[in-house]
Each structure stands twice: as structure tokens, then as C-alpha cells.
């Protein structure tokens, strides 16, 4: 070859071609049944590995007061413009109700006073967003297990679904967890952040804390807790807003 740039350009073209082939192969693999099955299986293996490495009740790290970040970032929905929510906000959420329903012996509708009267847990924990950032805050509220025991969970209930007052871009927000996380001691229905009622951007007046999973699982603006046997008939069947509309992993421990 007399032209010295010849082979180099060829090589670069070859590399780019190989790169494109590789990218193409990846999206082809993901579209096949086996490919997408493999991706789901990997998510399952991570959940099982996490849960077999530590006790299922092992606690997420709790921090000291001085570790709390100067403010707590709000993400996803940070305000709700429905007339119902606006009215509730003006009323300082005095008439907000939280329903516990579905596969329970005693469906309940709790007032904010009812929730504040239950035994409380306060925890300073780190919130990890799927995007990569973290913030630390102090959360207070009753454990979800307290509510579940009061309502009496029926045999065959496998998941807890959280219903929310907000809709994000493609529809109403909701989330779900299994019974292992539901009975975890740090899974609480928080009504205080750093000792103050929750700010609107952080989910006023009630939000979930599910400390061993990423932020999108921590449903905000909580209106109902629903016990179900299967997630198939809820939303689009994937177990949450982000799971339904954006393909996020249902198990968000990684």
C-alpha cells in the first residue's frame, strides 16, 4: 500500500463496523425471547444473591444527624396540580386518608392522626436514585408491618401495591414490593422528613421508605396500600409505573 493513511482508515472503518455489528447484535439479542428471558433471570439472580448473602431482615445503613444532607432533592413528580390535591394541600392534609385494602381481613381507612398515633420508627438513611445520586435524610413513620398486622393479611397475598395521588407522564404512579420487603423493619410509611411534615416535593403527606431498594420504589403521595396475589392485573402488569412504561427492573436492589 503506497498511501500511508489507507490501512489506517480501513482499520478504523473495520472497528466502527465491528462496533455497529456489536451494538446491533445486542439489541437483536434483547428482542428475542431467550435474550429478554436472560435479562429477567439476571435480575432474579441478583435479588436471590442479595437475600442469601445477608439476613432478609438485615438493616440498611443508618447514619448520624450530622450526616444529613443540607436539603433533600425532589425527583419525578414534585408537585400535583389536581384540584383534590391542591385542596388537601391548602388544608395542610388534615383530611388525607390512607386506605389499607385488598386481601386483608379488615380493610381500613386511616387518618393522619391515626397514623401519627401508631408506634413510630425514626431512621436516618441514604436515598439512592437509579440515576446515580444519593441524599441522606431522617424519616419518621409507622412500620408497614404494623399496618399489615392490624389489617390482617390473608393467605395467598404475595405483593403490596402502593397507590399514589400523582400521575407522571404516562399515567398514575404506583409501585409494589413483595412480602419480604413489606415486613422489613425499615419499610415505613413516612410522614416526617428531618422532623418536619413531608415537603410536597418529597411526597406530602405520606410516602414509602423501602431502604434496600432504589428511589423509584419509594412511592410518594400515598393514598392506598393494596394486598394482592399477583401483579398481573395491576397497571400494565409489571409492578410499577417505571416498570410498566419504561422497562425498569422490578427488583431495584442494584
Amino acid at each position, binding site marked *: 500500500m503506497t498511501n500511508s493513511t489507507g490501512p489506517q482508515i480501513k482499520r478504523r472503518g473495520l472497528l466502527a463496523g465491528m462496533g455497529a455489528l456489536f*451494538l446491533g447484535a445486542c439489541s437483536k439479542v434483547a428482542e428475542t425471547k431467550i435474550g429478554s428471558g436472560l435479562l429477567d433471570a439476571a435480575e432474579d439472580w441478583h435479588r436471590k444473591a442479595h437475600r442469601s448473602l445477608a439476613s432478609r431482615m438485615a438493616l440498611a445503613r443508618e447514619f448520624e444527624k450530622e450526616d444529613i444532607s443540607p436539603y433533600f432533592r425532589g425527583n419525578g413528580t414534585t408537585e400535583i396540580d389536581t384540584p383534590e390535591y391542591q385542596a388537601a394541600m391548602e388544608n395542610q392534609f388534615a383530611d388525607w386518608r390512607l386506605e389499607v385494602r385488598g386481601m386483608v381481613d379488615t380493610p381500613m381507612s386511616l387518618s393522619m392522626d391515626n397514623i401519627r398515633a401508631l408506634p413510630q420508627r425514626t431512621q436516618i438513611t441514604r436515598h439512592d436514585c*437509579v440515576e*446515580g445520586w444519593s441524599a441522606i435524610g431522617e424519616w419518621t413513620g409507622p412500620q408497614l408491618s404494623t399496618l399489615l398486622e392490624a389489617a390482617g393479611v390473608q393467605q395467598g397475598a404475595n405483593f403490596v401495591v402502593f397507590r399514589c395521588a400523582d400521575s407522571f407522564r404516562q399515567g398514575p404512579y404506583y409501585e409494589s414490593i413483595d412480602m419480604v420487603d413489606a415486613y422489613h423493619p425499615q419499610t415505613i410509611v413516612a410522614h416526617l422528613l428531618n422532623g418536619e411534615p413531608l415537603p410536597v416535593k418529597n411526597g406530602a403527606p405520606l410516602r414509602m421508605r423501602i431502604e434496600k431498594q432504589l428511589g423509584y420504589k419509594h412511592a410518594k403521595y400515598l393514598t392506598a396500600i393494596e394486598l394482592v396475589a399477583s401483579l398481573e392485573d395491576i397497571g400494565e402488569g409489571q409492578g410499577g409505573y417505571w416498570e410498566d412504561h419504561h422497562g425498569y427492573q422490578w427488583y431495584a436492589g442494584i
Partner: protein
Amino acid sequence: MARPARKHGLITRLWHWLNLVCIAVLFMSGLNISNAHRLLYWGDWGFAAEHAWLEVPRFPHWMTIPDHYNLAVARDWHNLMAWPFALGLLVMWIALIVTGRFWRELRTTRKEWYYKAIWADITAHLKLNFDHGKGKYNFLQRLAYGAVLGIFLPGMIITGLAISPGFEPAAPWVVDMLGGRQSARSFHFIFAWGIFAFFVVHVVLVLLSGPIRQVGDMITGGKAGQRGKP
């Protein structure tokens, strides 16, 4: 009849190519994940520009898996390939130790850690003289392979585990050792680019030292005693 000795063992060869695929997918899906939040922090927390020590560029789509911004699909690939990557490295390390290859071929000795000897090695490389005396790999090679196998690749796994909230309760000391979750995330990023730098140097040296034979040997095993490996 004894089998002829190979330059590269079967496990080394299988792992080498499996690892290449794993790293390519992990790196390219990782760049897509990086695009979701381009700020890096030290310590336990950080979520805004005023907490960050570095803002990384937005990586173009030809570098990422998938070839458009999609955090969910990128995380799917990242979480899938983490398995063969981590298990493959574990098998490779067991093989290196059990076969004695680590001790014979990768270990550096104390008398090599002298400025003069290291400088002689560097100048020989810069002069593209790849004929290094006795022993399969020269000092710089052993240093590079040792650092990649012993620090950077396991470092990716450890920092990756440390940023998983579901893993943290199993071994909170891992996160502490790294200085908090956001520090672990920063190290994850730094190690990834360290591996990329190794990849570039590795490929350049293969190209300069008889690429067809080098790549062929890494597939077939080659013959023991051949020299001139980058």
C-alpha cells in the same frame, strides 16, 4: 505422549475472549448509565453540581449500549453481564493460583523494583524491542497484567457491589472501606477508564508485535517458549 506445552492455557484463552465481550458490554452500557447523571461525588451522598468533584461529558450514542439513551435497557445489560464477568474472573484467579502460573509468570520480584531496571524496560518498549530475556512476560507486562487482574477488574466488582443498596446490608464494611456510596461510584468510574486505558495500550502493543500471531496464539494456545508478547 505428553501434550505439547502451550503458551496460553485453555482457561486463559476462554477467559480472555469471554472477558473481552463482558467488558465491552459493561463499559458501553455503563456509559449509557453515566449519561443519566453525569456528576461524581466523594463521600456518602451528593446530588447537585455544588457537591460534585467532576462533571463527566455526555457520551455519544455510538459509544453506548443501547445506541440511544435508555437507562432501563442499559441497566439490564449491565446487570446481566456482571455475572459472567465476576464469575469468569473468579475462575481465572483460581486457575492462576492452582496451576502456579501466577507465581511463575505474573509475580514481580523485589529486585525488579529498581528505577534502572524499570527504565531499561520502558525504553526497550518505546524502541519497540519486544524481545525480553528469560521468562514469559517482562516486568512491565507482569506489572500491567497484575494490576488489571488484581486491582482494576476486581475493583470494578467490589465498587459495583458497593453501589447496590440491596447488597450493602450484607457487607456494609465494603462501602465504608471505599469511603461511602458516592466514593464507590466515583471509583467505579475511575477503574472503568483505567481498564479502557489498559485496553488501548494492550491493543496497540499487539498490533506492533505481530498481531496475527499474537491473536492466533490467544485462540489456539500457540507454542510455549515463544517470545515477544505485549
